[in-house]
């Protein structure tokens, strides 16, 4: 079983549209498992129309809770908290005990240990949900991190682990992971254990800048990378720059998709672009790109 992760650095370059297309194309050649690792803003389900089979609670970590009846307003908790998560209490005009801002609390429990009144305890809290669903291209593992929660990396790891276990169990050949934007904790989790990363970029100053950082990140964790340029005709100068960069760094470019409204139309229709307009230019490029990705996955590149 091979693991392919789709990343971009910059958001909005077309990761999910590419992931949906590859899910469609790959599933015609081999049994696949899909995982949406963008747990903050999971969009793959909007294209794949999943039927939910299982729903599980995700416990995201601890939050401190102050017992208002025990608080003596000493302020120790406020002093030790480095996350601005303690809201000061007051004596005047009314007695207001100290409180915890649950969104800011990182659950370190430093205040729990320091409170001389033992008025603070840590509570496990539910930070999201994860699901196993069926789609027309294979089983999908996806999740919903509750608004503003931490530990997205942990939830990404959970979603991927479930996908991996099923793939091994049912002897499926490919785990296809749609990653989040950025280079931080959820990206590192999405990238962990991957055999190959496909980076979707665009020829803009931001795209180029972010491409170098995401390639640095996957390289740091020793995952080989391929690059796909989306909206390639938007700025030929930057497209050439990306091509030169890839060549200099020995990274294979697997395709250049021209800007095409049909990609958005397909999304609105809830279809991968390769199924929505199979003979179009975007679909043709994606098929060629998939063939190259497959060669790399099979070790034939």
């Amino acid at each position, binding site marked *: 079983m091979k693991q392919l992760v789709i990343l971009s650095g910059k958001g*909005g370059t077309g990761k999910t549209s590419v992931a949906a297309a590859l899910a469609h194309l790959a599933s015609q050649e081999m049994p696949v498992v899909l995982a949406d690792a963008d747990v903050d*803003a999971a969009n793959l389900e909007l294209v794949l129309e999943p039927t939910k089979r299982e729903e599980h609670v995700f416990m995201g970590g601890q939050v401190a809770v102050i017992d208002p009846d025990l608080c003596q307003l000493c302020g120790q908790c406020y002093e030790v908290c480095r996350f*601005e998560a303690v809201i000061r209490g007051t004596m005047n005009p009314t007695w207001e005990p100290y409180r915890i801002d649950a969104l*800011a609390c990182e659950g370190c429990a430093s205040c729990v240990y320091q409170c001389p009144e033992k008025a603070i305890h840590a509570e496990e809290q539910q930070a999201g949900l994860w699901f196993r669903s069926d789609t027309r291209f294979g089983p999908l593992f996806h999740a919903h991190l509750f608004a*503003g929660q931490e530990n997205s990396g942990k939830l990404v790891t959970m979603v991927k682990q479930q996908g991996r276990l099923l793939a091994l169990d049912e002897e499926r050949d490919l785990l296809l992971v749609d990653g*989040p*934007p950025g280079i931080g904790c959820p990206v590192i989790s999405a990238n962990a254990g991957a055999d190959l990363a496909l980076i979707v970029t665009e020829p803009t100053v931001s795209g180029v*800048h972010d491409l170098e950082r995401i390639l*640095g990140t996957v390289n740091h964790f020793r995952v080989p990378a391929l690059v796909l340029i989306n909206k390639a005709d938007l700025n030929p100068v930057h497209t050439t720059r990306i091509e030169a960069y890839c060549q200099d760094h020995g990274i294979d470019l697997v395709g250049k998709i021209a800007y095409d409204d049909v990609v958005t139309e397909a999304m609105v229709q809830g279809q991968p672009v390769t199924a929505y307009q199979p003979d179009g230019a975007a679909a043709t490029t994606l098929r060629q790109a998939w063939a190259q990705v497959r060669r790399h996955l099979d070790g034939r590149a």
Partner: protein
Amino acid sequence: MIIAVASGKGGTGKTTVATSLAQSIAADGRLSAPSGAAERARAQEASQPDQKLVFLDCDVEEPNAALFLQPDLDDGQEVGILIPDVDYDRCTFCGRCAEVCPWHAIAVVGRKVLVFPELCHGCGSCTLNCPEDAIHEVLHVMGVLESGPAGPISFGHGILNVGEAMAVPIIRQLKARHMADNDVDLAILDASPGTSCPVVETMRGADFVLLVTEPTPFGLHDLRLAAQVARDELGLPVGVVVNRDGVGDTGVEEYCAAQDIPILMRIPIDRRIAEAISGGQSLVEALPEYRPHFIQLYEQILGIVSSQEERP
């Protein structure tokens, strides 16, 4: 006044809107301008020189605003978190540090104490709980803060080092560094995509959250989540900018109407805009006719914020 610009979905035009908003206000030469013409004239007369406009790029994983604002940046300051360093002359290997660490970032193995900087959140709990006073803290560098003027705009951004996981400490320190002065009249904060902790850290303490979206199913799905964070979790007033207006469907429109979220500006789908931005020009540099629209956007935000303040 602090305006955070966020979106949920990536690539909807946060940085485009944030940079053009800042440049338009800077070019207009006034900040917290009251909307009445007479008052505006008075304010203009009274204030100018010491009014300060701050722009902070809080997308420390992929900071791009500097590409458009072209600030004259300083040499930068390394930032990170404080991680434990064990003094072996005092340590008795009692294991209390490992016991209190919820992230397993410190472990006692025989007569060695192992610290895992990539797991540490820098809370200081191990230091405080060590009965022998055998832990002191050292800076673990995770990124750099750079700042400098971009014309009349006071610019700052943070850059997370490649391979580092935690963006929040960088954002927190970026904000602390620039927002500590009381002389900031307006701060525009450009958030990262998503809806989890880095976005919350950016929005915290803001007076208004401007949500930039595109009228597609992905845009709508992520707008909902971002609105939930800003409005429902943090209790902040929100407004929407619809970018690439004309592409996609009517879902965003219907959602905003149903949720009573004002659409403050629309930027039509226009290849000229996409091409200008791809080359590093900001929207108002490429198409100056948008400047008055951004000033209008700012005045609407001021109106919403002041009407909120009047509420009991």
